[in-house]
């Protein structure tokens, strides 16, 4: 008899256990879960020691026949034509006397991956003066403020047509306060135009770092303050897009290296 009782206890007990597990709410000890890291690691800004900073400089030459700079016909717009005493020429292709090109954007294309650079608070300036954008070629860092001015007595509209950033088109009457804008995405280059004055063109290069330069009246550029390393230098020119090449350069601490480019008219 005792044995039978023992046999019975087993299933009854199991049964009770099963139902206890099956019914009722689930026990969740919420606090017992793995500690989860809710904070993102703060971004580390790369600082370049001025003592070891390297420099890359050089010139951009051209080869072959370049189209003659076209005279801008501002006659339709007396408000613009009146601002100039001499004829104004297109800034698309501006060759210098020493076979170099002006308005070529030179920048570090590769080699800075993984580094973060501080966003300057000092705004870059884009002015509309004499119905021309100044400068013609502008480099800024991501989210750096860009102050846009209208120094003319006529109404312009500022119309960047980016691929990676957002497009906008805003009217700027004379004497209005400057517009403050910024571009959150890397892009080389963003064309900027004025629909009222179709000859007006500017290009803005947006980079995640401060290592860019635009060739001047002698065709030269200089990128300073680089951390030592191996870089790919890219160039961009509005007309000779096809002939654009890159060059690799390695700079040691405090080193200054020269890299020249030669652009050719694409056939």
């Amino acid at each position: 008899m005792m044995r039978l009782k023992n046999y019975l206890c087993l299933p009854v007990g199991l049964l009770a256990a099963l139902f206890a597990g099956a019914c009722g709410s689930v026990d969740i000890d919420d606090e017992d879960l793995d500690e989860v890291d809710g904070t993102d690691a703060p971004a580390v800004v790369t600082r370049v020691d001025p003592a070891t900073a390297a420099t890359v400089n050089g010139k951009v030459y051209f080869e072959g026949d370049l189209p003659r700079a076209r005279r801008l016909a501002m006659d339709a717009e007396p408000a613009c034509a009146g601002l100039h005493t001499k004829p104004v020429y297109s800034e698309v292709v501006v060759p210098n006397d020493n076979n170099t090109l002006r308005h070529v954007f030179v920048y570090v294309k590769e080699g800075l991956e993984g580094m973060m650079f501080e966003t300057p608070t000092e705004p870059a300036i884009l002015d509309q003066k004499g119905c021309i954008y100044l400068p013609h070629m502008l480099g800024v860092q991501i989210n750096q403020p860009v102050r846009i001015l209208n120094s003319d007595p006529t109404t312009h509209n500022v119309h960047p047509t980016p691929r990676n950033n957002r497009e906008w088109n805003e009217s700027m009457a004379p004497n209005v306060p400057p517009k403050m804008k910024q571009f959150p995405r890397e892009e080389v280059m963003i064309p900027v135009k004025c629909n009222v004055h179709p000859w007006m063109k500017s290009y803005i290069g947006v980079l995640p770092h401060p290592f860019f330069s635009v060739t001047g009246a002698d065709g030269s550029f200089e990128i300073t303050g680089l951390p030592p390393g191996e870089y790919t230098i890219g160039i961009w020119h509005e007309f000779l897009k096809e002939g654009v090449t890159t060059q690799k350069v390695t700079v040691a601490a405090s080193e200054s290296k020269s890299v020249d480019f030669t652009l050719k008219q694409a056939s």
Partner: protein
Amino acid sequence: MPKKPPVGDDPVLNRSLGRILLIASLLMIASLLWALYDETYGLRPWKDYQKRFVSLYSRHLRRIQPAQSRAEQAVRQSAEYRKLSEAVTKAEDSIAPRISDLDRETNQVVSRRLSVITEPFAITRSEIAALIYQIETSTSQSVKDALQRQIDAIKAREVTLRLASANGSGEVVEQEERFDFDQLEAEFNRLQARRAELGAQRAELVKPYNELRGERDTLLGDRLTGLTASQVRGLRARMRNFELGIRQIHVAEVDLVDRCESCHLGIREPVVLTRADMRGEEVFVSHPNPALLDLHDPERFGCSTCHNGNGRATTSVRKGHGRHKYWLWPLFYRENFEAGCHQCHAQDLVLDHAEVLNRGKEIYYVEGCVGCHRFDGFDTESEALTEVQSSIHTLVEDRKEMGKEIEQSVLAGDNAQDNAEVQRYYARADELKQQISNLDHEMERLEVRSADLQIEQKRIGPSLKEVRFKMRKEWIPVWLENPHAYRPSTKMPAFRLDEGQRRAIAAFVWQTGDEGELPGQPRGNAVRGKELFETRGCMGCHAVGEGDAAQGSSFAANLSRVGEKVHYDYLVPWIHNPQERQPLSVMPSLRLSLAETRDIASYLMTLKQADASYPEADYLDDPALGSEGSMWVKHFGCAGCHEIAGFEEEGRIGTELTREGSKPIERLDFALLTHEAKHDGWYNHKGFFERKLKDPAIFDQGKIKTPLEKLRMPNFKLADEDITALTTFLLGSVDSTLPEHFFYVPGDRGQDIREGWWLVKRYNCMGCHQVRPGQQSDMSGMARYQDPDLKEQLPPTLVGEGARVDPDWLARFLRNPAMDAERTERNGVRGYLHARMPTFRFSDSQIQKIVRFFEALAAQDRPYIPTRLEPLSNRELELARQLFTSKAAPCLRCHATGNPAHDRNATAPNFLLAKERLKPGWTERWMVAPEMIAPGTAMPSGLFQREGERWVFAGSLPPAFRDYAKDHAELLVRYMFQLTAQEQRRLMSRMPAAATSVASR
């Protein structure tokens, strides 16, 4: 005495069953345990899911809580929130003393007094009421008098109550007061009124404070993505108290029970749950498109209505998903899930949230499936035409009958006995005359409709009556052999033809072609033609280049090798006016000049492969071959897509597919592949459709068939995603068991949109235009238009077109986009665009549908009654002129003026068109924020700025504006809408002189 068996033999004594019993009872226990286990776990796998969900979800909530708190904190610390928060506190502080006064009076005086007074007052009142009732019911006057005296005594009785009241210094003191009944009643009423008054004062006082608080909380909700920390805490608490159990939706009217959410617990959670959030357990993710659930409340629609599957099954995933041979409606696979939309949206060609299904329907519609397979709602014109014609026939018969009856009535009247009867007969004859005239009105309508339908009828492929004019003879058999070799993207499918069939069909087509001579065309300039081809708009439908190199739209033929095939002398008249040559084609006229047409045709003739060669095909003239071909043309249903002489009335040869998705699986002929299909798990509709579309001959495998018995469906060489799209469409094409009211029945606007899409897709409006937000036109994808300056040469966006233009104007524009009967070689609105709005051969009812479509898309009322604008005062007229011509307003630099020298550089329409064409409200919205309507437009934003309730021009204003207090944008709109040509000339004369000379880029 029974013989005692020997002790050793007694089974009771020396045979033990213990072992057997033990084994049996162990087995019993084991099976009991198994049964219990199966009952609790085995049959209820969802319990496990629920436990896992609770644990994963709790973990996720716990993980996001700090971030949400931080985000909430950030909002709370934002200047705007703090400002509001301070305002709330300030408002609270400012009303606090007054509130406390009110509350004190309410609570300490009024309510306390009331609570003491109420009882004695109520008792006395009821005593009096009882006595009054007795007076009313008693019959004796003396009793009445006695009762009245009793009442008077009660009323005179005085009570002493200890009541609170405020003394002069504001303190509350209790003192005794005496009242007779009238005084008591007056005091009671006064107190009640006072309490209500105090309450109202309080509510009035806290109103601004409550509004501010609401504003603050709304700001928090708006700024914060996701939930607030307290909401997250709430969800966590809910998870801690989670009860295991079936979660089901019951839709009683269709007897639908869906228990899907017993496992898919994350579907409707307020937190978006991704796979990663739930540690890779896809079963717990949120519904990927919550917008769909907003449109189709799961409590009303359930899950399996859209997704299929067996909503009641809970014992295994396989059964729940309906992947069981006895379940007719297995869950749609992920790539086909939009099939579920079709049963209720069968008449919609374009449906939001259903891109795959839309693609499937579009292929069916414009790629030619409908040429062989009837499908309800697709290509209905020929059926409608038959119907209209039979209605006309009936009307003609009715009319004849009525005519006879008139004659009889008149005759009967003439011979009637008395005048009353005469009048009756004659009146009947007159009634019938009028009825006939009503029939005539209807007849006219039907005849117009019939003419319209004849215009609306279109064919997918070109007319084969034109072959002799159009193309090289040798090209035909080469094409028939493998259309995709010549043109990989062609809509023409590859038929399974043997050499003999091919020759016969080619010969027949050649021999039935119309004969005649076309005038010879002088050659044009191919270089100029290329430019024209690329800019006039041809590439809104046609492409050149194959594969990745293709530029243009894939809607119509890819013309990369067209020069190998066609005759130049045909190409010129065809391009010049396609509808004249082939009215069954959808190709419109671009209103090109003959010179332009010749340039383009000359360019097209240069498009050929250098090494292409075509063998001689003299056999095409063999009459015997031709008559054999006739049979094959009929057999293969060529006339489904092509106009062929003698085959005009030919019907469709394929099976109707309107309900193909619910056809019993046994009726889909897997033929010799049945066994393989069952074994490999594709013995279902999806498997059949996919394989058939990939290789239409697949189910002939291993069969021995005569040429006439072979499956006829040709191979369309569909891309895999197109096969998926078509399969989705076919899977959804079911005979729905849902009651009617589940189906989507649009209102007037929805109906207009629904009907419009059929035309928008047929004529490929989206090749050139953006029709709905987010869609890009085919043209805008071309390399050419990536240049920021050429981008402005793209045809205008039509998003909001119905709000922009006057519908009557739009109807006129669609009929003749040149807006001029004589000068047709231009755009009526945007003369500056190289691309031309083509002239389509639309019927009146098509134009009406298109106009209504755009009106409905922009939520416009119909009919449109133009807004009346307040006329300009003389002063306003002068102000508007000054503003228009001021240096600060650049309007007339870009907008055309009608002055040819100026218009050469114009990049926007002439203001003179505004009155006829635009709606004033839209015009004002456009002027102040064009980027909202057409992002990327050349029209700049920021021309006006908000000043209080009005828009003010954002630039230096002419001095006369100093005391003008009205809206500047509105002023300009009103000016624009009364502009005349004369006024425009006057304006131009005020512009600085140089406006007439020409600027170049």
